[in-house]
């Protein structure tokens, strides 16, 4: 059975993989949107944060002696920064803070040093490491630029990407790495990816759902739900929304604006690592990963720069457009042209995106 001249099952396959890969795109978009929402900076370095985060995950996921020690040091550094800069609960006493940090460090240290569960260790270690990365980027490069013109911050995030690329190169080189996290152990004792779900005899062929993409999609949905709830119902989320809208006023009502911005970057760092890990688990971690973030920019604009839900919808739409474009016109059109054509159309027709706030700078 054909749908517009293409075999029906192939179209359905394109639809399904489009939506599922769209989930990963959406996660990437979410990281960009969160920073934009809190600080109004569009983070061109997100792809490079992904690369670094993914490789960090890979390092912790390897059974290496060094990894837990590094992770432990990381958690120490992170908590040290948190204790000086991001004292969030406003009225905590110094003693309370010290106690909290000690307990948190001990707990994460215990997980990192004691557990044999590689995945758990990798998750904790990567979360700590990438949060620290986000904080450092914000502190060292973005904060000094407050009140500079727009293209200075654009330039800054572009260049931060370069530096991150250099750091990645220096530490990990550029050999590609496979990241089999959604895997069982097979007869040979090797990790084996979960088998895909096959639906036979649909519209004239077999349609396949990749398990790791499905899991990735599930994680993306969970992350989105989490963030929507976070922004709606938690004080920190509320503070971030407030800061995004009017940083001066937020400070006047007593919010620690700089802390809120730092937290946004830390969250974005963790999200970048999450997206990279999920992407890496379905192919491999390669040095070309930052290019993926470029293709997600249209998704961010389509959804609207400040909209969490928009990031989700935008990611799905771009994922779908790419795959269906590939089915109908081949991959040179589908993957290389369509996202940017969508981008141009969005800019001309509805610059604020589908769900963005309408305070767009119009001429």
């Amino acid at each position, binding site marked *: 059975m054909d749908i517009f001249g293409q075999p029906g099952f192939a179209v359905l396959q394109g639809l399904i993989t489009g939506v599922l890969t769209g989930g990963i795109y959406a996660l990437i978009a979410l990281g960009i949107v969160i920073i934009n929402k809190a600080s109004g900076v569009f983070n061109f370095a997100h792809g490079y944060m992904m690369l670094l985060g993914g490789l960090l995950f890979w390092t912790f996921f390897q059974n290496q002696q060094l990894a837990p020690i590094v992770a432990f040091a990381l958690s120490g550094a992170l908590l040290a920064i948190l204790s000086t800069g991001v004292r969030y609960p406003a009225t905590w006493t110094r003693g309370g803070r010290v106690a909290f940090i000690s307990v948190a460090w001990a707990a994460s240290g215990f997980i990192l040093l004691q557990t044999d569960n590689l995945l758990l260790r990798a998750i904790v270690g990567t979360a700590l490491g990438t949060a620290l990365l986000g904080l450092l980027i914000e502190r060292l490069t973005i904060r000094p630029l407050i009140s500079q013109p727009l293209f200075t911050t654009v330039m800054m995030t572009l260049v931060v990407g370069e530096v991150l690329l250099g750091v990645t190169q220096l530490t990990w080189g550029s050999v590609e790495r496979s990241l089999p996290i959604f895997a069982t152990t097979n007869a040979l004792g090797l990790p*084996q990816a979960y088998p895909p779900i096959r639906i036979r005899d649909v519209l004239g062929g077999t349609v396949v759902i990749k398990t790791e993409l499905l899991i990735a999609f599930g994680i993306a949905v969970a992350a989105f739900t989490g963030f929507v709830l976070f922004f709606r119902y938690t004080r920190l989320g509320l503070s971030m929304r407030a800061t995004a809208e009017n940083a001066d006023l937020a400070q006047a009502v007593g919010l620690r604006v700089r802390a809120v911005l730092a937290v946004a970057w830390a969250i974005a760092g963790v999200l970048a690592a999450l997206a990279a890990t999920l992407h890496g688990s379905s192919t491999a971690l390669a040095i070309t990963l930052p290019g993926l973030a470029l293709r997600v920019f249209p998704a961010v604009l389509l959804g609207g720069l400040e909209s969490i839900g928009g990031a989700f919808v935008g990611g799905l739409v771009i994922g779908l457009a790419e795959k269906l474009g590939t089915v109908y016109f081949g991959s040179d059109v589908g993957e290389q042209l369509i996202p940017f054509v969508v981008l141009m159309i969005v800019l001309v027709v509805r610059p604020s995106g589908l769900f963005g706030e309408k305070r767009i700078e119009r001429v």
Partner: protein
Amino acid sequence: MRTRLLAFALVFALALVSLSLGQPAPTAFAQGGMMRTECKEDLTGKTITLHTFGDLSGPFAPITQPLAAGFADALKYYNANGGICGAAITLQQDDTAGRQEQTQSLYQRYRAFDPKPLMLLLYSSADAELLREQVADDEIPVFLFAGSTIGLYGEQADTPGWIFAGIPLYTDQFGAFCRWLGKAWTTDLGREGSPKVGHLSWEGAFGRSSETAETTAYCAAQGVEVVGGEYFLPTATDVTAQINNLVSKGANVLFTTSLASGTALIAKDLVTLGLEEEVLLSGVNWALDSSVGLLGQATFKPSGLPSTDNIYGIMPYIWWDEPTDGTKLVQEQFTANQRPLTARGISYLAGFGAIDTYIELITQTVNRVGYDNLSGAEVKKTFETFKYDALGGVFKYNFAENVRAQNSARIGRLTYARGADGMPIVVEVGGNKLLVPVVLPVTTEFETVPDLKPGGADVVN
């Protein structure tokens, strides 16, 4: 990692292919076990530089990083064993990050070196294509570890030809594969019907190099139909749509001109779609590499072997596990320098072999014109009649007036090392269990690949 198979049970040296050089009766001597031309001049105390730049950190990195490791180890080894007739070899190396902009500016810098580079070693099709005219202007010959037709012969197979390729042209590789496929389809491969090939490659000069009008026509003459091509980005997460497109056009063979994760992704998605038996995966020589074999281990076929098991392709050299003096030497150095398993691929061999080749090339040139008269133009002259078995036959070069690319190859198959019981051997590296990728020859004899450059000898009209 050292297994029975890898331990080279058969290390007794084969009688090396004699160095049948075009030069008047050169005497041969052994340098580290390899036979090479005797030096006429003692260059002790001098330094000769090998110049190379390429993509060490871009999309080609998975093969170029082991290549750089091969350079480094070979330099260390050969410098300790006499260098070039006593002269020390130094390496001038830079990274282009896969950017043409950077290639151009590096080239401008290199060509202005004093003394001018005797030879430039490149490993990207796009770089060679970009610099083709310029190296001719500057009289710097290029030894290229890629098989770009345009790079070597230009748009219409015209001269100048200052570029010499260490592997067969990708067009010719594809032609050779078609030639074999046409013959082996129903016999060796035991398949039905006729082979129909779809190209599924990376976007870019490299990826698009094997699908040309000449190769399509040649393959048709061999009974192999080319049904079309899909070109995906190195960042793609998924190529099921592309595979479906090609399969619905009738393809039962996929031929890929991609590296490492590109090829591994195709193999994985073939398994995902359940097409691993129906569709044969094949590719240029880079598809038969450890980088692919290692990355393919996340997904397994129902047979219990990784998705990248049984990739067919062109094998223009000798693989690590074939017991020769050359592979033994490389294996020793590889172990001595504690290189990781990820580097145990073809590009490490290539890097090592390139240094060996360079030594021979310069030695021959010095013998012919003397050290003081060394120049790019003279090196090019040597190249034009260069016959050499690098690393004792791991790479066989035989250039002639109109042949500037290595042109003999076997058909190979990427699979995994097996023990005596026929089970794959599992090794543990850094706590991870891995299968060891190996490339086995499917056809044992090296055969001359068809000449499919525009206007080439085997072009079908």
